[in-house]
């Protein structure tokens, strides 16, 4: 069993996993088409119920729904960089790269949303980051503005849920002090 350095939380490896945890680990690898279990899921597996909940969130909000996967990855990357969550920023940056998001767009997502194009993508990203960072101050005008981009109510709910998911995973990763997976670290080093 491995432990996280700062808080000594145990990380359940594939060989240690049994029962429901093992089944979810298999589902994670199969669904995400990756050969490893990300550290955040290994750590959350300290509670099978927390693992079930976290994977359920990931599956339903991120992997399903009507919004394009690239847009979702871009939104989550913007939120995690805004929160300075190193773990989630790394994961979402690599995901964006794998989805062919250019370096120029990645830089705009992290530093200056006004440089994003097309307008629809820019407005969705800005609205989503606002939902995550400052939801209390969203106004009727913000909603009107985003609806002018032709966003349906279903898409609107998904954008809000995605912002909430960003907050959820940033909270977990930062609170648990999760180390960046070597696969993601290498991908970023090889840029």
């Amino acid at each position, binding site marked *: 069993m491995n432990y996280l350095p*700062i808080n000594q939380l145990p990380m359940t490896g594939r060989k240690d996993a049994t029962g429901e945890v093992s089944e979810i680990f298999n589902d994670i690898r199969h669904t995400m088409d990756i050969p490893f279990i990300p550290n955040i899921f290994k750590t959350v597996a300290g509670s099978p119920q*927390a693992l079930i909940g976290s994977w359920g*969130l990931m599956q339903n909000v991120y992997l399903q729904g009507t919004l394009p996967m690239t847009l979702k990855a871009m939104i989550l990357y913007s939120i995690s960089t805004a929160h300075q969550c190193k773990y989630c920023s790394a994961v979402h940056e690599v995901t964006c790269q794998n989805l062919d998001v250019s370096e120029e767009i990645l830089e705009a997502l992290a530093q200056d949303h006004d440089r994003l194009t097309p307008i629809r993508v820019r407005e969705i990203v800005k609205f989503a980051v606002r939902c995550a960072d400052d939801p*209390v101050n969203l106004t009727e005008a913000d*909603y009107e503005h985003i609806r002018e981009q032709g966003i349906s109510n279903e898409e609107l709910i998904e954008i809000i*849920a995605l912002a*909430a998911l960003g907050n959820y995973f940033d*909270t977990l990763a930062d*609170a648990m002090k999760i180390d960046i997976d070597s696969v993601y670290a290498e991908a970023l080093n090889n840029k």
Partner: protein
Amino acid sequence: MRYLPISKIPLVEEEDAIGEVAETFDKFRSFMGVPSVGAANMALANSPVVLTLTADLFIRFLEQTILPHPLLFMIHYTISTTKNCVCCSAGFERACRSVGIDEKMLEALINNLDSVSPERVREIIQFTVKCAVEPLSLTEADYDRVRDQGVSEQELVELIFWAGYAMLNDTVADAAKWDDQERQQLIED
């Protein structure tokens, strides 16, 4: 059709719900022992995937967690009031009362966490609020302090999960503007 006041998100009325949404509404009413699922769930039902996820997650976690429900409700109430989420504060204040949390404790949770007793509950709530509000500043010492209260590794993970879940709920409620639903008339056309 009724709508939430600020966001104008339409509500899927309980009598109009079909399929997966109707099943989720039934499950929620039955588990919570309430006559209505409330405007929040009716708004979420615009995306059946999101509604099913949030309701199922909530119910399943509460059914199987090793943490006591009163503690979880107190934690969510404290986080939501700290984040100024009117909707979740009100909802979890009601949840706290429903499991017997008294006025003195409710007052302490929002105005003076240092006066919460017993010590174990105080340390757990302080740790969990820090997880939600300023997770980057958590240190080894914070983990040591909560472990000193006999908190197991599984409980620790469930506490952090619950802090994240409270952040998720507060974000959805504040962004969708559920906070005004109890004070304002829903818009009808």
